[in-house]
């Protein structure tokens, strides 16, 4: 089949699709899934994951009576915030929260024996994947963006006018924008990975741990391999770089830096590729609750 014929076929296929219906189905799915996933006691663990740094910083703000020092202290706190976002949120908090949220979207419904209800409605399974993914992303992003925002606000609020001028007149606002972008990208990147894993494995926790291992050791691999990890793209978007430390630091291969545009696009492409794979996986999925 020639390329022209293929394009014509794709155009005809696209024209025949009820996109409006798909859109409304995605909207309904997101709405009902968010209601089920965001405001529920089952998510207390995830709230804790998101709020631990906020509580620590808040405690610091309340009980640290030594009073804020000058710009040097702001610099130090900026590095502390960078550490919180890059080492805690990106590597642990968002990772485990996404594991809990996104693996539950399908696998959890298998465990609760309720997935068949969604397989018995006139919804394409691809639409189901997209709807559930977006719902998970909304939940994760809402939670962690709020947490990062709270950390940022608390961190600089104690500096008074110096803090205000750092945020509004200095690099602070730009850094906040970068952190929020990185947080959102981490949520969708890890989310897509865990959604795919939950469609592939009955117990996605074990491969999840393997993924975590990969994300940790990816920097010691060649540059092309590093591009297959979520942290590779996130690292290049972080506004404050942290010095490398630990035993892995000596084996680390410094990959060629990528522009923010490429980093965002790369991560989005990775996410879309993983979601496309998920759409293939879900077609193989059968309702066999007894095997769970």
């Amino acid at each position, binding site marked *: 089949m020639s390329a022209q014929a293929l394009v014509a076929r794709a155009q005809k296929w696209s024209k025949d699709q*009820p996109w409006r*219906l798909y859109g*409304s*189905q995605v909207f*309904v*799915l997101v709405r*009902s899934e968010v209601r*089920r996933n965001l405001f*529920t006691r089952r998510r207390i663990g995830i709230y804790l994951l998101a709020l631990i740094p906020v509580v620590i910083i808040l405690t610091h703000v309340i009980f640290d009576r030594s009073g804020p020092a000058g710009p040097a202290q702001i610099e130090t706190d900026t590095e502390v915030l960078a550490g919180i976002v890059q080492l805690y949120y990106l590597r642990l908090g968002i990772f485990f929260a996404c594991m809990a949220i996104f693996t539950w979207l399908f696998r959890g419904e298998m465990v*609760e*024996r*309720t997935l*068949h*209800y969604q*397989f*018995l*409605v*006139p*919804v*394409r*399974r691809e639409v189901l994947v997209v709807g559930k993914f977006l719902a998970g992303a909304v939940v994760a992003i809402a939670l962690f963006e709020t947490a990062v925002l709270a950390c940022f606000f608390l961190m600089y609020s104690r500096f008074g006018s110096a803090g205000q001028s750092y945020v509004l007149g200095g690099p602070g606002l730009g850094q906040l924008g970068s952190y929020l972008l990185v947080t959102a990208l981490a949520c969708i990147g890890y989310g897509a990975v865990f959604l795919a894993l939950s469609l592939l494995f009955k117990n996605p926790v074990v491969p999840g741990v393997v993924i975590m291992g990969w994300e940790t050791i990816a920097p010691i691999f060649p540059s092309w391999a590093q591009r297959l990890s979520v942290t590779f793209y996130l690292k290049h978007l972080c506004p404050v770089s942290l010095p490398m430390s630990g035993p892995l630091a000596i084996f680390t291969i410094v990959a060629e830096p990528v522009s923010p545009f490429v980093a965002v696009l790369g991560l989005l492409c990775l996410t879309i590729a993983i979601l496309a794979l998920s759409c293939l996986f879900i077609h193989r999925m*059968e*309702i*066999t*609750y007894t*095997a769970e």
Partner: protein
Amino acid sequence: MTLDARQIVFENVSKFYGEVLGVNKVNFSLQPGITSLVGPNGSGKTTLMNLMTGLIRPSRGAVCVLGLTPRQPIEFFRQVGYCTQFDSFPPGTNGYDFIYWPLRLHGFGHHQAAKLTDEALERAGMAQVAKRKVAGYSKGMRQRVRLAQAIAHHPSVLVLDEPLNGLDPMARAESITLFEAIAKQGMHVIISSHILEEVDRISDRVVLMSSGYVVAEGQIREVRREVRDHPMQILVRCSNAARLAAAAFELDHVVEAKILNDGRGVLVRTRDAEQFYLLLNKIASGGLVEVDAVAPADDDVNSIYQYLIGSDGGPA
């Protein structure tokens, strides 16, 4: 409309769960009306229904429902409603939402979905408790709300896995009336049930299953014809079942005499019913055994089922 577009067709369908057989080489086509799937637990009824509705895929063969397959989910699931036997619900849902949100996924707007939800709840007799959490429902109520969800979008094919389980006699009678009304509108109603007398009464045809195979299929009378050569069954309720069984065994044409669990009756399988009735008269008039009741246990699904697969089809 072609013939296939009104039929449910199984073409050489097999399903294996790893090395375990679900169903094997199933071939049949169903016309509109009520069809009952009958068989003991593990015979493959649920597997057949799950194949019909695309919850599982056949290992071999093809299933076609009104000319559609689950690979065309939008068209397919507008035509098909499935009330499964899984007694589980999304956590925290109430009866109304349980029906309303799937209707929204069908593409209905708020007003239409709300109207259809109310109508389905009304038909299933659940309107009064619709706003209560499903977790607080009785088993019968859960069964009915699942039924309401399956019929809410007015499907042409209604698949019901053990739909009468857990219903009280009143609700059971109402459900049966509902199934009959749906079937009269020219729709397919596929029912699996262990309550054989009720299935027998309302079915246009039966599919008898055993160990993953369809052992007979067709109208009850046709199925009975298939087993004409088999011995006839007669149920005798009497005071001394053991003595009657011993006497029956002396006759050549009696192939089996099974004492009932309560010890107050015998199920006799004989190739010559006339001769057996003569014996029974003789025994009764001789005062050896006091006969309470005699009934041919042969015209309902249960007896046919016993002939074919040697089980009473009751729950295991």
